[in-house]
């Protein structure tokens, strides 16, 4: 391919061992905490979290559903039915396990590859697909790009679209809860690229000083669009940036939901004791950055293959099989069920109406100004005459 370039050698901040692409096979050396290995066996590093059979199955089923949503979203975008898609293949473990480690009334400030957080808190599949299709009756009235999700009823704040800009919003909200004397805890997800923005540093600095009940999870997925983690920072890890601000920090295997759960659970407990945390979850974006991206231009197929062997779905499935909780029949049934549920949600969501142009003016202010009233009347009049 004409534009093909070699990607940089092993990213310092993404890796930890010489050669190869994926540090998870030598996690201890890279300072990455793990519960299970690629085959779903206990590594003996972090203790196995105390989760019962039903909870573990729920965790895995959600990961599969989220993977199935990604596969469908991609097809819908490529066939022109959804305008834009932000894939999340390979990134299921971090946000799903971390959400499970937090209480229902805790607040989550989402990034854009995290549908599982909403589903775990009870959002219907059709609500998600209505958002992907930009329909009138989804919570945000069709105003946001597909996958930029949230819902106040579920204590999930939708992201401000600029990467990383919401990190101090999460920290500020947590600080607000502390001032009010509430026991709410706060969780936010962002990528490796977001750590280069001033907002990340502002939030960590304020968190170190004012100690609000917040947990920062940096999903280091190796790439910020086309920029490798090694070009994002010269620091050895993203976690160590917490040291500069006296914020507790650690690295976990982001493709190991049990390790993420254990780390997030502990961080949630500590958050209420004036100890905010920065967790670097080392993971990998197996898919494109967005539907407008072409990873062939900047990364090697061998890199993707190496990481695919550490696919969080495969590892979790093997772990469940070893425990005797899961088998081939359940696996086949689950995928059938996901496909059927998604089919129904797509059909229902796509049939919903688009927003009315007049609604563009709503919610700019609590009470619309005369200026907007006048612009609205003028626009609607013009649209009427044009039609």
């Amino acid at each position, binding site marked *: 391919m004409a534009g093909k370039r070699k990607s940089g050698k092993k990213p310092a901040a993404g890796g930890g061992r010489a050669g190869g692409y994926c540090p998870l096979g030598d996690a201890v050396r890279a300072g990455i905490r793990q519960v299970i290995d690629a085959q779903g066996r206990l590594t003996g590093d972090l203790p196995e979290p105390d989760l019962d059979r039903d909870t573990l199955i729920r965790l895995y089923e959600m990961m599969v559903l989220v993977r199935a949503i990604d596969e469908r979203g991609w097809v819908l975008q490529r066939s022109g039915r959804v305008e834009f898609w932000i894939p999340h293949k390979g990134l299921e473990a971090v946000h799903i396990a971390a959400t499970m480690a937090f209480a229902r009334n805790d607040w989550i400030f989402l990034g854009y590859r995290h549908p599982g957080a909403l589903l775990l808190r009870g959002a219907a599949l059709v609500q998600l697909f209505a958002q992907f299709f930009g329909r009138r009756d989804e919570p945000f009235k069709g105003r946001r790009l597909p996958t930029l999700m949230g819902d106040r009823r579920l204590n999930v704040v*939708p992201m401000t679209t600029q990467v990383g800009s919401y990190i101090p919003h999460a920290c*500020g909200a947590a600080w*607000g809860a502390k001032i*009010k004397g509430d026991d709410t805890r706060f969780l936010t997800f962002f990528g490796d690229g977001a750590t280069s923005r*001033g907002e990340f540093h502002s939030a960590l600095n304020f968190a170190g000083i004012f100690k609000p009940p917040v947990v920062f999870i940096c999903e280091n997925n190796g790439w910020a669009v086309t920029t490798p983690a090694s070009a994002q920072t010269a620091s050895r890890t993203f976690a160590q940036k917490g040291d500069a601000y006296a914020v507790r920090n650690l690295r976990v295997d982001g493709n190991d939901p049990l390790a993420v759960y254990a780390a997030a659970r502990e961080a949630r407990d500590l958050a209420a004791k004036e100890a905010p945390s920065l967790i670097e979850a080392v993971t990998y974006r197996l898919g494109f950055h967005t539907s407008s991206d072409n990873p062939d231009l900047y990364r090697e197929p061998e890199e993707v293959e190496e990481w695919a062997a550490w696919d969080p779905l495969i590892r979790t499935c093997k772990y469940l099989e070893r425990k005797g909780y899961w088998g081939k029949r359940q696996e086949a049934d689950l995928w059938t069920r996901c496909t059927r549920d998604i089919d129904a949600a797509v059909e229902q969501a796509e049939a919903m109406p688009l927003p009315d142009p007049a609604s563009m003016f*709503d919610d700019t202010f*609590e009470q619309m100004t005369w200026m907007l009233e006048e612009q609205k009347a003028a626009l609607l009049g013009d649209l009427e005459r044009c039609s």
Partner: protein
Amino acid sequence: MKARRLNVMEALNAGMAHELESDADVVLMGEDVGRAGGIFRTTSGLQQRFGSARVIDTPLDEKGIVAHAVGMALYGLRPIVEIQFSGFIHDAFEHIMFCATRYRWASGGQYSCPMVIRSPSYGGIKGGFWHSQSCEAYFVHQGGIKILTPATVDDAYRMMIAAIRDPDPVLLVEPVPLYRALSDEIVLDGQAAEIGRAEVVRAGQDVSVLTYGPIRHQVAKVADDLAAQTGIDVEIIDLRCLIPYDIGCILDSVTKTGRAVIVHEAPLSLGFGAELAAVIQEKAFGYLHTPVLRVAAPDVPYHFSIGDECYRPDAGRIRIAIERIMEFEH
């Protein structure tokens, strides 16, 4: 309740104190605002009175201060943020204009960011472009934020209260040169100003001068001089609010006088005067005897050593514009 004599800064302080006292969700944050009471002393005594959890000295980070206040507002607090000088506000621009103003709309009305951003503005203090900026026009462009600018003791107190109680973000463009220079009698009764109302400072028949900020006091002097010396009868309108502005008051005046001069300290191109000139010709074209004129600063930075005299519009330039519009011939 007895009237007290306060200067503008004390009136702003009294407005904040009233709301801190009456609403536990109000917090105040910024660089040096706590123990020292701010570099201007606008927040003097508030930390001592309301505690360091609610009157907060922050790190030196405008972006971080506003962004954390956005988070507090999302959670249900009503933060007041002090930006030390409007010249430092640009670092926080994204969080004001793409976050605070956007959460309500972009969440379909689920979230809101009721917060006040205090932006000490305007020239006349030998501050150069770091300390004498009039950059309010940047915030006019896209909705979601209200913009208030007091130029009297009464407005300082009541607009502060109105801004804190408003359900949306408010930019409070404060008149630095009037902080200590202007004082007046005021009853501290906790009454908020009505947002969106202009004030007819002086009624007149010949020409409407539309202005806002501390320069309104210069305009008033010019009007008195002109009345005494030439008989030109100037009507002065202090807009007080840029978003939303008082279109009714503006049109009542301009359709009466048929002449409009706009005076502001901010630079000319796409300053708020450009919007006013456009809306006046759209809505009052048939009433106008002359084109609309503008008196503004040039599109260059505020000069340090000669800016207060040569850059900032003054009485002389205001008078020239009024005389020019009265002499205009087709």
